[in-house]
């Protein structure tokens, strides 16, 4: 089971990233938990300089932009292989 975290305080880009991540997860039918992290201290502990951030299994894969569904799919697939 994957843990996917969306880092961001609730700005438009964070919501969009959450939508994309959830959609990819359901399209791929992988077992994954999507968690929103909104507390600034928690966000800062991931060493990112701009939100939204995407964290898969505690590893930051993107920050500061909204990645495309294709990119998110690749990252999730990589994480599954690592499992």
């Amino acid at each position, binding site marked *: 089971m994957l843990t996917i975290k969306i880092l961001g305080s609730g700005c438009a880009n964070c919501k969009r990233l959450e939508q994309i991540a959830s959609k990819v997860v359901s399209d791929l039918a992988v077992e994954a938990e999507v968690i929103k992290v909104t507390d600034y201290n928690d966000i800062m502990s991931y060493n990112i*300089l701009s939100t939204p951030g995407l964290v898969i299994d505690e590893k930051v894969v993107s920050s500061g932009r909204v990645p495309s569904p294709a990119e998110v799919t690749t990252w999730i697939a990589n994480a599954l292989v690592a499992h």
Partner: protein
Amino acid sequence: MEIYSSIIGLLQGGLGNLAAYLAAHVLLCLVPAFYIAGAMTALIPKESVTRFLGRNAPKYVSYSAAALAGSVLAVCSCTIVPLFAGIYKKGAGLGPAITFLFFAPAANILALVYTGSVIGPDLAFARLFLSLAFGIGIGLIMALIFRRSDIAHDKATDAMFSAQSQRGMSRASLAFLLILVALLLAGTLKVGLLINSYGQVTLPIPGMERFQEFLYQLVPYDPAKGEEGVTAQGAILIGLLVLIGFSSWKGMEHIHEGFNRWTWIALGLVCLTLLTASLGMQPHAGGLDIRFTGKFFGVFLALWLLAWLLFKKLTEDQRRDFLWESWRFVKQIFPLLVVGVFTVGVIRMLIRPEWIEALAGENTLLGNLAGVIFGVFMYFPTLVEVPIAKMFLSLGMHRGPLLAYLMADPELSLQSILITATIIGRLKAWVYVFWVALFSTLAGLIYGSWVDGTSIGIVALYLIAFLAVLSLTLYLVNKRSSQKATFHSTASTD
């Protein structure tokens, strides 16, 4: 009956203000500015600036990098807050973080362009330079006042900043950004080369003159009060704007799933609108004269180059990020701006010029303080401070207090105070507010005296004298505290 007609009058004032703003100011300045902001967010790699913000960077590097980050990276709170917290907690410390926070709202491209086109380039430049000088000044002061806690707190790592790769901008992205700026300049600069017309056609559309008369009746205006009417060209442009809004909603909202037909329609409409706005139009009894100005050719050339770069040179990811970020800015800021401008138009009818003139008609200490206090206690969404400032100006406010207000309002919004408080603590946040209020008042006084005719040399002298006193004080305090620190450390080794 009286109440009824006065309500109609108020609504007419609001609508008139809105229509005049949309037609006159939005297109050739705000549309490119939104795209520039989008391109900056999407195409400038943040690492290229932030790697100078580490804890080990020398002071002059970290403060200038903080100011630069404020003006090019921080167009929205998505970037401002994490970057502010990052600089403070893991990077260069409180001083540069404050400089960044102060400079970002005053010097981002949207604020500068809008101030320049609505109120005047002189005020935009004053806003830029004084914010830069004072942003660094306040940063230094804060770093000094709170130096103990700044050193004590989180010595841990600046690995986050220094380990960043030195990825620069690709040449295509840089060219793209520069041509966007050129597009903005071609549309807004008022120089002969761009304003002169180089050809003219007359379209035989009957009734154009009556259409124009009708518009002036619909939105009555009084040039003496600084109001603007709506021209036939303005009405066409407003119609095009509505179409752009609609097609963008369809085409940009789901751009992460790929381009669709509406995306192309929206982009085509944006180009068409910018070209229409750059033409000169003169309705008369026989039809409509269309003048091909230098502006038109400049805008056409810039658009053509942009399209070529966008589709041939940028990667698909960059293209998508650029369009999405630009659309997001429009979606986030534009509706608030429309509501704000309308409200300003209504309020404009209710305020008597005598009140403003009595309070801030002259460049006095009291007038500047009034401007600052209004800025601190009122909270307006991004960019709405500009039409409000324009209203004050037309009601007789002096340009000095006006600048004081423009410096204080975005710097000290409720939002920024709250953010500052959660990240650096309440005491530091309020000390920051105090300094911003003081410096804004000062900025207004200095700029106001320049407007009143004091020679630039004397103004520069004031500024230098003030900065000299400030740095001397800082130097002395610093020296004393470092002496104390050595004394303490020798005492403890004994």
